[in-house]
Protein backbone atom coordinates (compact mmCIF):
# COMPACT_ATOMS: atom_id res chain seq x y z
CA UNK A 1 0.00 0.00 0.00
CA UNK A 2 2.79 2.36 0.99
CA UNK A 3 4.60 1.44 -2.18
CA UNK A 4 1.54 2.31 -4.28
CA UNK A 5 1.23 5.62 -2.43
CA UNK A 6 4.86 6.39 -3.14
CA UNK A 7 4.24 5.71 -6.82
CA UNK A 8 1.26 8.03 -6.76
CA UNK A 9 3.32 10.70 -4.99
CA UNK A 10 6.09 10.52 -7.53
CA UNK A 11 3.67 10.55 -10.43
CA UNK A 12 1.84 13.51 -8.93
CA UNK A 13 5.10 15.37 -8.47
CA UNK A 14 5.93 14.75 -12.08
CA UNK A 15 2.67 15.82 -13.66
CA UNK A 16 4.34 18.69 -15.38
CA UNK A 17 7.05 16.55 -16.84
CA UNK A 18 7.48 15.70 -20.46
CA UNK A 19 7.19 12.30 -22.09
CA UNK A 20 10.96 11.87 -21.73
CA UNK A 21 10.74 11.38 -18.00
CA UNK A 22 11.69 7.91 -16.81
CA UNK A 23 10.13 6.21 -13.80
CA UNK A 24 12.16 3.75 -11.76
CA UNK A 25 11.43 1.38 -8.90
CA UNK A 26 14.24 0.83 -6.41
CA UNK A 27 15.70 -2.67 -6.62
CA UNK A 28 15.72 -3.89 -2.98
CA UNK A 29 18.54 -6.33 -3.78
CA UNK A 30 20.74 -3.41 -4.75
CA UNK A 31 19.74 -0.80 -2.24
CA UNK A 32 21.44 0.05 1.03
CA UNK A 33 20.68 2.50 3.79
CA UNK A 34 23.58 2.50 6.21
CA UNK A 35 24.32 4.54 9.31
CA UNK A 36 27.38 5.22 11.44
CA UNK A 37 27.37 6.59 14.95
CA UNK A 38 30.19 7.23 17.38
CA UNK A 39 30.55 5.08 20.49
CA UNK A 40 32.33 6.64 23.49
CA UNK A 41 34.21 8.86 21.05
CA UNK A 42 36.43 5.87 20.40
CA UNK A 43 34.96 4.01 17.48
CA UNK A 44 32.13 4.00 15.00
CA UNK A 45 29.26 1.56 15.25
CA UNK A 46 27.75 0.84 11.89
CA UNK A 47 24.41 -0.58 10.93
CA UNK A 48 21.99 -0.79 8.08
CA UNK A 49 18.36 -1.24 7.25
CA UNK A 50 17.72 -4.34 5.21
CA UNK A 51 14.30 -3.40 3.84
CA UNK A 52 14.52 -0.38 1.53
CA UNK A 53 11.99 0.33 -1.18
CA UNK A 54 10.91 3.30 -3.20
CA UNK A 55 10.42 4.91 -6.56
CA UNK A 56 11.95 7.84 -8.40
CA UNK A 57 11.51 9.80 -11.58
CA UNK A 58 14.35 11.16 -13.66
CA UNK A 59 13.33 14.01 -15.92
CA UNK A 60 15.45 16.07 -18.30
CA UNK A 61 14.14 19.07 -16.37
CA UNK A 62 15.78 18.46 -12.94
CA UNK A 63 13.04 20.34 -11.08
CA UNK A 64 10.63 17.64 -12.24
CA UNK A 65 12.73 14.82 -10.82
CA UNK A 66 11.34 13.19 -7.71
CA UNK A 67 12.48 10.63 -5.15
CA UNK A 68 10.51 8.70 -2.55
CA UNK A 69 12.13 6.11 -0.29
CA UNK A 70 10.59 4.01 2.46
CA UNK A 71 12.64 2.04 4.97
CA UNK A 72 11.17 -0.54 7.33
CA UNK A 73 12.45 0.36 10.81
CA UNK A 74 12.11 -3.24 11.97
CA UNK A 75 14.82 -4.27 9.49
CA UNK A 76 17.60 -2.50 11.41
CA UNK A 77 20.70 -4.66 11.51
CA UNK A 78 23.86 -3.75 13.38
CA UNK A 79 25.25 -7.27 13.45
CA UNK A 80 24.32 -7.87 17.09
CA UNK A 81 20.89 -9.26 17.93
CA UNK A 82 20.80 -7.86 21.45
CA UNK A 83 21.68 -4.38 20.20
CA UNK A 84 19.16 -4.68 17.37
CA UNK A 85 16.41 -5.54 19.87
CA UNK A 86 17.36 -2.42 21.81
CA UNK A 87 17.46 -0.31 18.64
CA UNK A 88 13.92 -1.45 17.76
CA UNK A 89 12.61 -0.55 21.23
CA UNK A 90 11.14 2.85 22.15
CA UNK A 91 14.55 3.79 23.59
CA UNK A 92 15.67 4.26 19.98
CA UNK A 93 13.64 3.82 16.79
CA UNK A 94 10.39 2.63 18.46
CA UNK A 95 9.74 0.31 15.53
CA UNK A 96 6.26 -0.72 16.66
CA UNK A 97 5.12 2.89 17.01
CA UNK A 98 7.00 4.27 14.02
CA UNK A 99 7.37 1.33 11.63
CA UNK A 100 8.74 3.33 8.71
CA UNK A 101 11.41 5.89 7.96
CA UNK A 102 10.51 7.87 4.85
CA UNK A 103 12.02 10.44 2.56
CA UNK A 104 10.03 12.35 -0.03
CA UNK A 105 11.74 14.92 -2.17
CA UNK A 106 10.36 18.43 -2.37
CA UNK A 107 13.03 20.07 -4.54
CA UNK A 108 15.69 18.73 -6.86
CA UNK A 109 18.58 20.80 -8.26
CA UNK A 110 21.23 19.64 -10.69
CA UNK A 111 24.83 19.52 -9.44
CA UNK A 112 27.94 18.08 -10.95
CA UNK A 113 27.51 14.31 -11.36
CA UNK A 114 24.09 14.21 -9.79
CA UNK A 115 21.42 16.07 -7.90
CA UNK A 116 21.00 18.04 -4.72
CA UNK A 117 17.78 16.61 -3.37
CA UNK A 118 15.90 18.34 -0.59
CA UNK A 119 12.96 16.58 0.98
CA UNK A 120 10.96 15.68 4.02
CA UNK A 121 12.71 13.06 6.11
CA UNK A 122 10.50 11.34 8.67
CA UNK A 123 12.22 9.46 11.45
CA UNK A 124 10.80 8.44 14.83
CA UNK A 125 7.56 10.22 13.96
CA UNK A 126 9.29 13.57 13.41
CA UNK A 127 9.51 15.15 9.96
CA UNK A 128 12.31 17.58 9.11
CA UNK A 129 13.78 18.85 5.85
CA UNK A 130 16.99 17.09 4.86
CA UNK A 131 19.25 17.65 1.88
CA UNK A 132 21.04 14.78 0.19
CA UNK A 133 23.76 15.08 -2.43
CA UNK A 134 22.96 12.21 -4.77
CA UNK A 135 25.79 11.31 -7.10
CA UNK A 136 25.47 8.99 -10.06
CA UNK A 137 22.78 8.70 -12.61
CA UNK A 138 24.68 6.55 -15.04
CA UNK A 139 22.75 3.83 -16.78
CA UNK A 140 23.25 0.18 -17.56
CA UNK A 141 21.27 -2.62 -19.12
CA UNK A 142 21.42 -5.58 -16.76
CA UNK A 143 20.28 -8.22 -17.39
CA UNK A 144 19.51 -7.76 -21.06
CA UNK A 145 16.32 -5.77 -21.52
CA UNK A 146 16.35 -4.28 -18.02
CA UNK A 147 17.40 -0.65 -17.82
CA UNK A 148 18.95 0.50 -14.58
CA UNK A 149 20.28 3.68 -13.09
CA UNK A 150 21.70 4.29 -9.65
CA UNK A 151 22.62 6.96 -7.13
CA UNK A 152 24.67 7.23 -3.97
CA UNK A 153 24.39 9.94 -1.37
CA UNK A 154 25.12 10.80 2.20
CA UNK A 155 24.20 13.29 4.87
CA UNK A 156 24.68 13.90 8.58
CA UNK A 157 21.81 14.57 10.95
CA UNK A 158 21.37 15.05 14.65
CA UNK A 159 19.26 12.26 16.08
CA UNK A 160 18.14 14.48 18.96
CA UNK A 161 16.38 16.68 16.37
CA UNK A 162 14.15 13.70 15.72
CA UNK A 163 13.39 13.01 19.38
CA UNK A 164 15.99 10.26 19.70
CA UNK A 165 17.95 11.54 22.67
CA UNK A 166 18.79 8.25 24.37
CA UNK A 167 22.36 8.17 25.66
CA UNK A 168 23.46 11.32 23.85
CA UNK A 169 27.02 11.64 25.08
CA UNK A 170 28.37 8.12 25.27
CA UNK A 171 26.65 7.53 21.94
CA UNK A 172 27.09 10.37 19.47
CA UNK A 173 24.30 12.76 18.54
CA UNK A 174 25.48 13.08 14.94
CA UNK A 175 24.51 10.18 12.72
CA UNK A 176 26.15 9.69 9.36
CA UNK A 177 23.75 8.31 6.79
CA UNK A 178 24.76 6.75 3.52
CA UNK A 179 22.30 5.62 0.89
CA UNK A 180 22.95 3.85 -2.37
CA UNK A 181 20.37 2.37 -4.68
CA UNK A 182 19.67 1.14 -8.16
CA UNK A 183 16.38 1.69 -9.88
CA UNK A 184 14.82 -0.52 -12.52
CA UNK A 185 13.10 1.37 -15.29
CA UNK A 186 9.39 0.68 -15.50
Amino acid at each position, binding site marked *: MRYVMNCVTVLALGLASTAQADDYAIDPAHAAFDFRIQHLGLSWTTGRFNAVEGVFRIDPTPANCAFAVTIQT*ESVDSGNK*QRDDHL*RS*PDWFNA*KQHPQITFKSTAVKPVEDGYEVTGDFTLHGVTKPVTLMLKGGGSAEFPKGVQRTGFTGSTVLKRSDFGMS*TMVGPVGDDVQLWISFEGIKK
Partner: protein
Amino acid sequence: MPDPVAILIAMAASGIVTAIVLLACSRLASSPGAAIGWPLAVGLGFVTGSIMLGFRPRGILATDQERLLLLVVPLAVTVESWITMRPMSTARKVLVRGCVALSSGPLLLLGSVYMTGGSGGWSLAERVCFLFGLGVSILVPWLALVKLQQRRPDPVISLTLAATSLAAGITIMLSGYASAGQLALPLAATLVVAALAAPAAAGLSAPGAVGVGWICLAGLLFIGRFFGSLTTLHGVLLGVTPLVCWLAECRPLCFWAAWPRRLLLLTLTLLLLGTVVWQAQHRFQTHSGSPAPGGAPAPSMQDYLDFGR
Protein backbone atom coordinates in the same frame (compact mmCIF):
# COMPACT_ATOMS: atom_id res chain seq x y z
CA MET B 1 21.97 3.28 29.96
CA PRO B 2 20.61 2.34 33.42
CA ASP B 3 22.50 4.46 35.94
CA PRO B 4 22.52 2.65 39.32
CA VAL B 5 22.79 5.90 41.30
CA ALA B 6 19.89 7.51 39.42
CA ILE B 7 17.83 4.37 39.95
CA LEU B 8 18.55 4.34 43.69
CA ILE B 9 17.60 8.02 43.96
CA ALA B 10 14.38 7.36 42.04
CA MET B 11 13.58 4.40 44.29
CA ALA B 12 14.17 6.53 47.38
CA ALA B 13 11.97 9.31 45.99
CA SER B 14 9.20 6.83 45.18
CA GLY B 15 9.35 5.38 48.68
CA ILE B 16 9.31 8.81 50.32
CA VAL B 17 6.36 10.04 48.25
CA THR B 18 4.44 6.85 48.99
CA ALA B 19 5.12 7.19 52.73
CA ILE B 20 4.15 10.89 52.76
CA VAL B 21 0.87 10.27 50.94
CA LEU B 22 0.00 7.35 53.22
CA LEU B 23 0.85 9.38 56.29
CA ALA B 24 -1.15 12.39 55.09
CA CYS B 25 -4.17 10.28 54.21
CA SER B 26 -4.05 8.34 57.48
CA ARG B 27 -4.47 11.65 59.31
CA LEU B 28 -7.74 12.13 57.43
CA ALA B 29 -9.02 8.84 58.83
CA SER B 30 -12.44 10.23 59.56
CA SER B 31 -13.06 11.67 56.12
CA PRO B 32 -13.84 9.78 52.90
CA GLY B 33 -10.66 11.22 51.44
CA ALA B 34 -8.64 8.85 53.59
CA ALA B 35 -9.86 5.92 51.54
CA ILE B 36 -7.92 6.96 48.49
CA GLY B 37 -4.62 6.90 50.40
CA TRP B 38 -3.42 3.47 49.28
CA PRO B 39 -4.13 3.63 45.55
CA LEU B 40 -2.99 7.26 45.37
CA ALA B 41 0.23 6.53 47.28
CA VAL B 42 1.22 3.68 44.96
CA GLY B 43 0.25 5.56 41.80
CA LEU B 44 2.05 8.75 42.81
CA GLY B 45 5.09 6.83 44.03
CA PHE B 46 5.40 5.06 40.69
CA VAL B 47 4.95 8.23 38.63
CA THR B 48 7.41 10.16 40.84
CA GLY B 49 10.07 7.48 40.39
CA SER B 50 9.46 7.51 36.65
CA ILE B 51 9.91 11.29 36.50
CA MET B 52 13.10 11.01 38.55
CA LEU B 53 14.38 8.52 35.97
CA GLY B 54 13.89 11.02 33.18
CA PHE B 55 10.35 10.34 32.03
CA ARG B 56 9.13 13.44 30.21
CA PRO B 57 5.99 13.49 28.08
CA ARG B 58 7.05 13.98 24.48
CA GLY B 59 3.64 14.60 22.99
CA ILE B 60 0.02 13.91 23.58
CA LEU B 61 0.24 10.25 24.56
CA ALA B 62 2.77 9.70 21.79
CA THR B 63 4.65 6.88 23.48
CA ASP B 64 3.73 3.71 25.32
CA GLN B 65 5.24 5.02 28.57
CA GLU B 66 3.19 8.21 28.37
CA ARG B 67 0.03 6.21 27.86
CA LEU B 68 0.90 3.95 30.80
CA LEU B 69 1.85 6.72 33.22
CA LEU B 70 -0.64 9.39 32.17
CA LEU B 71 -3.63 7.28 31.21
CA VAL B 72 -3.68 3.71 32.49
CA VAL B 73 -2.19 4.29 35.94
CA PRO B 74 -4.42 7.32 36.75
CA LEU B 75 -7.39 5.28 35.50
CA ALA B 76 -6.50 2.44 37.87
CA VAL B 77 -5.97 4.86 40.78
CA THR B 78 -9.35 6.48 40.08
CA VAL B 79 -11.17 3.16 39.87
CA GLU B 80 -9.55 1.70 42.99
CA SER B 81 -10.25 4.91 44.91
CA TRP B 82 -13.85 4.91 43.73
CA ILE B 83 -14.34 1.28 44.73
CA THR B 84 -12.80 1.98 48.14
CA MET B 85 -14.86 5.11 48.79
CA ARG B 86 -18.22 3.83 47.56
CA PRO B 87 -19.26 0.39 48.73
CA MET B 88 -20.66 -1.53 45.77
CA SER B 89 -21.64 -5.05 44.84
CA THR B 90 -18.99 -7.59 43.82
CA ALA B 91 -20.43 -7.78 40.31
CA ARG B 92 -20.13 -4.03 39.92
CA LYS B 93 -16.54 -4.05 41.15
CA VAL B 94 -15.70 -6.75 38.61
CA LEU B 95 -17.42 -4.73 35.90
CA VAL B 96 -15.55 -1.52 36.72
CA ARG B 97 -12.17 -3.25 36.96
CA GLY B 98 -13.02 -5.22 33.81
CA CYS B 99 -13.57 -2.00 31.89
CA VAL B 100 -10.13 -0.74 32.93
CA ALA B 101 -8.44 -4.07 32.19
CA LEU B 102 -10.03 -4.40 28.76
CA SER B 103 -9.26 -0.81 27.82
CA SER B 104 -5.62 -1.03 28.97
CA GLY B 105 -4.50 -3.01 25.91
CA PRO B 106 -5.95 -0.65 23.28
CA LEU B 107 -4.70 2.38 25.25
CA LEU B 108 -1.15 1.08 25.56
CA LEU B 109 -1.00 0.01 21.92
CA LEU B 110 -2.60 3.19 20.58
CA GLY B 111 -1.18 4.24 17.21
CA SER B 112 1.22 1.31 17.01
CA VAL B 113 1.42 -1.24 14.19
CA TYR B 114 -0.73 -3.58 16.29
CA MET B 115 -3.65 -1.16 16.04
CA THR B 116 -3.02 0.34 12.62
CA GLY B 117 -2.52 -3.00 10.89
CA GLY B 118 0.85 -2.10 9.40
CA SER B 119 3.66 -4.53 8.62
CA GLY B 120 4.05 -6.96 11.53
CA GLY B 121 0.74 -5.79 12.98
CA TRP B 122 -2.55 -7.54 13.63
CA SER B 123 -5.56 -8.01 11.42
CA LEU B 124 -8.91 -6.86 12.78
CA ALA B 125 -9.85 -10.37 13.94
CA GLU B 126 -6.45 -10.87 15.59
CA ARG B 127 -6.76 -7.48 17.22
CA VAL B 128 -10.12 -8.30 18.79
CA CYS B 129 -8.95 -11.74 19.99
CA PHE B 130 -5.58 -10.62 21.34
CA LEU B 131 -6.88 -7.50 23.06
CA PHE B 132 -9.71 -9.42 24.71
CA GLY B 133 -7.30 -12.14 25.82
CA LEU B 134 -4.83 -9.57 27.14
CA GLY B 135 -7.61 -7.73 28.96
CA VAL B 136 -8.69 -10.95 30.65
CA SER B 137 -5.08 -11.77 31.55
CA ILE B 138 -4.84 -8.40 33.31
CA LEU B 139 -8.24 -8.68 34.98
CA VAL B 140 -8.01 -12.19 36.44
CA PRO B 141 -4.83 -11.65 38.51
CA TRP B 142 -6.12 -8.21 39.50
CA LEU B 143 -9.32 -9.68 40.93
CA ALA B 144 -7.45 -12.61 42.47
CA LEU B 145 -4.91 -10.41 44.27
CA VAL B 146 -7.50 -7.93 45.54
CA LYS B 147 -9.71 -10.80 46.72
CA LEU B 148 -6.81 -12.39 48.56
CA GLN B 149 -5.89 -9.09 50.20
CA GLN B 150 -9.48 -8.78 51.44
CA ARG B 151 -9.66 -12.39 52.67
CA ARG B 152 -6.25 -12.46 54.31
CA PRO B 153 -4.77 -8.95 54.67
CA ASP B 154 -1.06 -9.59 54.62
CA PRO B 155 1.93 -7.44 53.62
CA VAL B 156 3.37 -10.49 51.87
CA ILE B 157 1.14 -9.75 48.85
CA SER B 158 2.67 -6.30 48.36
CA LEU B 159 6.13 -7.73 49.02
CA THR B 160 5.56 -10.41 46.37
CA LEU B 161 4.43 -7.74 43.92
CA ALA B 162 7.53 -5.69 44.82
CA ALA B 163 9.85 -8.65 44.23
CA THR B 164 8.11 -9.39 40.94
CA SER B 165 8.48 -5.75 39.89
CA LEU B 166 12.19 -5.90 40.64
CA ALA B 167 12.60 -9.08 38.58
CA ALA B 168 10.38 -7.70 35.81
CA GLY B 169 12.52 -4.56 35.66
CA ILE B 170 15.73 -6.55 35.26
CA THR B 171 14.15 -8.92 32.73
CA ILE B 172 12.69 -6.10 30.61
CA MET B 173 16.06 -4.31 30.64
CA LEU B 174 17.76 -7.53 29.56
CA SER B 175 15.14 -7.83 26.83
CA GLY B 176 16.27 -4.65 25.13
CA TYR B 177 13.92 -2.03 26.57
CA ALA B 178 16.06 -0.35 29.21
CA SER B 179 13.96 2.74 29.93
CA ALA B 180 10.80 0.72 30.62
CA GLY B 181 12.64 -1.87 32.69
CA GLN B 182 14.12 0.68 35.03
CA LEU B 183 10.66 2.11 35.77
CA ALA B 184 9.84 -1.15 37.54
CA LEU B 185 12.47 -0.48 40.20
CA PRO B 186 10.80 2.59 41.76
CA LEU B 187 7.57 0.62 41.57
CA ALA B 188 9.22 -2.08 43.67
CA ALA B 189 10.31 0.55 46.21
CA THR B 190 6.78 1.95 46.33
CA LEU B 191 5.30 -1.47 47.01
CA VAL B 192 7.87 -2.25 49.72
CA VAL B 193 6.93 0.97 51.52
CA ALA B 194 3.25 0.08 51.11
CA ALA B 195 3.92 -3.36 52.61
CA LEU B 196 5.87 -1.94 55.54
CA ALA B 197 3.25 0.73 56.17
CA ALA B 198 0.37 -1.73 56.14
CA PRO B 199 0.47 -2.65 59.86
CA ALA B 200 0.79 1.02 60.87
CA ALA B 201 -1.94 2.28 58.56
CA ALA B 202 -4.64 -0.25 59.39
CA GLY B 203 -8.02 1.20 58.67
CA LEU B 204 -7.16 2.35 55.20
CA SER B 205 -7.86 0.00 52.35
CA ALA B 206 -4.81 -2.00 51.23
CA PRO B 207 -6.56 -3.77 48.31
CA GLY B 208 -6.37 -0.45 46.48
CA ALA B 209 -2.58 -0.52 46.74
CA VAL B 210 -2.40 -4.10 45.52
CA GLY B 211 -4.74 -3.31 42.61
CA VAL B 212 -2.81 -0.26 41.44
CA GLY B 213 0.51 -2.05 42.01
CA TRP B 214 -0.66 -4.91 39.82
CA ILE B 215 -1.82 -2.60 37.01
CA CYS B 216 1.54 -0.77 37.04
CA LEU B 217 3.40 -4.08 36.88
CA ALA B 218 1.10 -5.56 34.22
CA GLY B 219 1.45 -2.37 32.15
CA LEU B 220 5.23 -2.59 32.24
CA LEU B 221 5.16 -6.27 31.26
CA PHE B 222 2.74 -5.37 28.47
CA ILE B 223 4.90 -2.63 26.95
CA GLY B 224 8.02 -4.74 27.50
CA ARG B 225 6.43 -7.52 25.46
CA PHE B 226 4.87 -5.45 22.69
CA PHE B 227 7.35 -2.60 22.30
CA GLY B 228 10.51 -4.29 23.57
CA SER B 229 11.62 -7.88 23.16
CA LEU B 230 10.36 -9.43 26.39
CA THR B 231 9.45 -13.02 25.54
CA THR B 232 5.89 -14.22 26.04
CA LEU B 233 7.15 -16.96 28.38
CA HIS B 234 8.96 -14.50 30.63
CA GLY B 235 6.00 -12.12 30.57
CA VAL B 236 3.56 -14.85 31.57
CA LEU B 237 5.83 -16.26 34.29
CA LEU B 238 6.34 -12.81 35.78
CA GLY B 239 2.61 -12.12 35.52
CA VAL B 240 1.55 -15.25 37.38
CA THR B 241 4.24 -15.14 40.07
CA PRO B 242 2.27 -12.84 42.46
CA LEU B 243 -0.52 -15.44 42.40
CA VAL B 244 1.79 -17.70 44.42
CA CYS B 245 0.31 -15.83 47.40
CA TRP B 246 -2.91 -17.76 46.88
CA LEU B 247 -1.11 -20.84 48.22
CA ALA B 248 -1.70 -19.25 51.63
CA GLU B 249 -5.33 -20.29 51.25
CA CYS B 250 -4.45 -23.92 50.54
CA ARG B 251 -3.92 -26.69 53.05
CA PRO B 252 -1.72 -27.10 55.01
CA LEU B 253 -0.38 -23.54 54.62
CA CYS B 254 -3.63 -21.94 55.77
CA PHE B 255 -3.11 -23.54 59.20
CA TRP B 256 0.49 -22.39 59.53
CA ALA B 257 1.58 -19.47 61.66
CA ALA B 258 1.96 -16.19 59.77
CA TRP B 259 5.76 -15.93 59.65
CA PRO B 260 6.61 -19.46 58.41
CA ARG B 261 3.87 -19.10 55.80
CA ARG B 262 5.19 -15.73 54.65
CA LEU B 263 8.71 -17.11 54.53
CA LEU B 264 7.65 -20.03 52.38
CA LEU B 265 5.65 -17.84 49.99
CA LEU B 266 8.50 -15.38 49.59
CA THR B 267 10.98 -18.23 49.07
CA LEU B 268 8.80 -19.76 46.35
CA THR B 269 8.37 -16.34 44.74
CA LEU B 270 12.10 -15.65 44.75
CA LEU B 271 12.85 -19.08 43.30
CA LEU B 272 10.44 -18.50 40.42
CA LEU B 273 11.72 -14.98 39.80
CA GLY B 274 15.34 -16.07 40.07
CA THR B 275 14.75 -18.67 37.38
CA VAL B 276 13.20 -16.10 35.04
CA VAL B 277 15.99 -13.55 35.57
CA TRP B 278 18.67 -16.22 35.15
CA GLN B 279 17.08 -17.37 31.90
CA ALA B 280 16.77 -13.78 30.65
CA GLN B 281 20.43 -13.16 31.53
CA HIS B 282 21.43 -16.31 29.64
CA ARG B 283 19.42 -15.19 26.61
CA PHE B 284 20.99 -11.73 26.79
CA GLN B 285 24.51 -13.18 26.79
CA THR B 286 23.68 -15.51 23.92
CA HIS B 287 22.30 -12.68 21.81
CA SER B 288 25.03 -10.21 22.73
CA GLY B 289 27.85 -12.20 21.23
CA SER B 290 28.30 -12.95 17.57
CA PRO B 291 29.58 -16.52 17.59
CA ALA B 292 31.25 -17.80 14.48
CA PRO B 293 29.06 -20.08 12.34
CA GLY B 294 29.37 -23.81 12.89
CA GLY B 295 30.77 -23.38 16.39
CA ALA B 296 34.19 -22.33 15.08
CA PRO B 297 36.31 -20.51 17.66
CA ALA B 298 36.33 -16.72 17.44
CA PRO B 299 39.57 -15.40 15.96
CA SER B 300 42.02 -13.95 18.45
CA MET B 301 44.22 -10.89 17.99
CA GLN B 302 47.12 -13.24 17.29
CA ASP B 303 45.07 -14.86 14.52
CA TYR B 304 44.80 -11.47 12.82
CA LEU B 305 48.53 -10.80 13.30
CA ASP B 306 49.40 -14.21 11.87
CA PHE B 307 47.08 -13.84 8.89
CA GLY B 308 48.87 -14.48 5.60
CA ARG B 309 52.14 -15.72 7.16
